[in-house]
């Protein structure tokens, strides 16, 4: 059979997001795959060098569209470490709640993408609807639905509004009561099993070698979670489990995501119960004159896709000297995707890419 070159994406029905892969195919089998990112490169890291420390907040959250809160958190943490700012106890609890809500909304969005791609339209609509309920919460708390700009150096921007605690609990109940429906229509569906089983398989040794994190490595049986290894916010004060699976294929990755959502709900409930009263914000100096002492740091958090890190260098001036984000999709979407796609079928490209949980804007930055 003849070998062909196939340009898959960024405009293609089977492709999700602005990402492109050049495939070398024979029949419908893939021989080689070359990831081709850059369609969303906005040069944020360079643009941030022109703006003051506070002015960068509206920019960092736009690096990953699906879960902006983790982006804000990691940048705020790096600034706090360089400027030596303390965060009040209540703010740390609020941050944890916001981050877990963001993880839930991001996982639901992931479920939407995966279900939609496989043709489970009903499940996709449910997931989108439930994500919207969480966005409603965010709208009330921060004023923005998608981009919140809520977490700041020194705490969070404002306290919970009146009755907000009950609203969170009601929303979580509304979503949680649908878990049996989700299970029977999607996660335990034999059709889903047939489509996702054994697809995009990667073993633990290779995943470690290629720098995988998040659901990708947890689906291979390794309990690796930064919330446990290097706790930030109040993750060392709440009790939760790290769900893992053994097989390392698309099916197990989706199941890890499902189990993680349930853990997230548990974390939020515990935080709501333990939350102390008090201040939510430690004042920082005038942002227009705020200079941060010389130094550099590497800080990381566990975003819903894996290890999200930032390498931040300060030159003692009112703006950063160099910012570099280590995003989880970077190794997943470039090097792991290329390996996993070998010997796969063309029909499974979108399947594999979504199950690796790749978000293109995160790669391009």
């Amino acid at each position: 059979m003849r070998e062909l070159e196939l340009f898959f994406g960024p405009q293609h029905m089977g492709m999700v997001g602005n990402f492109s892969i050049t495939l070398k195919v024979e029949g419908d089998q893939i021989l080689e795959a070359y990831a081709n990112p850059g369609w969303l490169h906005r040069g944020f890291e360079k643009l941030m060098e022109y703006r003051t420390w506070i002015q960068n907040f509206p920019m960092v959250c736009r690096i990953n569209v699906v879960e902006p809160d983790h982006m804000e958190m990691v940048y705020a943490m790096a600034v706090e470490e360089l400027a030596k700012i303390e965060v009040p106890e209540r703010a740390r609890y609020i941050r944890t709640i916001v981050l877990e809500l963001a993880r839930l909304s991001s996982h639901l969005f992931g479920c939407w993408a995966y279900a939609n791609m496989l043709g489970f339209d009903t499940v996709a609509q449910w997931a989108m609807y439930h994500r919207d309920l969480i966005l409603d919460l965010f709208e009330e708390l921060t004023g923005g639905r998608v981009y919140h700009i809520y977490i700041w150096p020194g705490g969070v921007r404002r306290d919970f509004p009146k009755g907000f605690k009950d609203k969170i609990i009601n929303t979580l109940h509304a979503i949680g009561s649908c878990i049996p429906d989700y299970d029977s229509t999607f996660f335990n569906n034999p059709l889903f099993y047939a489509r996702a089983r054994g697809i995009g398989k990667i073993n633990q040794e290779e995943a470690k070698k290629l720098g995988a994190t998040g659901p990708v490595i947890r689906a291979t049986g390794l309990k690796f979670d930064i919330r446990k290894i290097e706790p930030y916010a109040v993750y060392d004060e709440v009790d939760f489990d790290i769900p893992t699976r053994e097989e390392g294929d698309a099916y197990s990755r989706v199941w890890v995501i499902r189990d993680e959502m349930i853990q997230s709900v548990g974390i939020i409930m515990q935080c709501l119960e333990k939350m102390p009263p008090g201040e939510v914000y430690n004042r920082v100096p005038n942002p227009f004159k705020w200079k941060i002492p010389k130094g550099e740091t590497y800080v990381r958090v566990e975003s819903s896709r894996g290890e999200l890190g930032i390498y931040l260098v300060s030159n003692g001036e009112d703006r950063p000297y160099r910012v570099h984000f280590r995003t989880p999709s970077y190794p997943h979407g470039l090097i792991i995707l290329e390996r996993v796609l070998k010997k796969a079928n063309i029909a499974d490209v979108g399947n594999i890419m979504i199950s690796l949980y790749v978000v293109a804007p995160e790669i391009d930055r």
Partner: protein
Amino acid sequence: MKREIRALFKNVLIEEKGKKITITAKKEQTLELLRFLKNKGYNYLVLISAVDWIKEKEFELIYVLSSYVRKEKLHVILKTRIPRENPRFKTVIPIFENAEPYEREIHELFGIKFEGHPRLTPLLLERDYRIPPFRKDFDTRKYVKKFFEEIPSIEP
């Protein structure tokens, strides 16, 4: 580990801060050090980054290493400097496979050549720039103004 590094590698600066350890090494020692750290259990390359120190006329390369198991020190940050004039460095792909995209990106954005890298093709950028765009002497604002004002407007 600190003592071992000091004994094996001369003139290495080691700084400890909380759970991080920062090592500043000469460029000749870097690959050896990376190999040594990998054997010590820091087998997860998190990030390769570059910083343009234009006043000192040097580029700084940063290798952030970590481990998949909990260790006493969670991060090792290895820093090394290379001259800004005709910058070259050896690739670390033989030691860490996942260095490939990071080195490609640094080659594109900073113009640092990695010897022995099999695929130094463009990764993110759309067109050729005279100066690699993440260098400090590349002025984004000036470039945008010049580039987009050259495009004629639609109205006559």
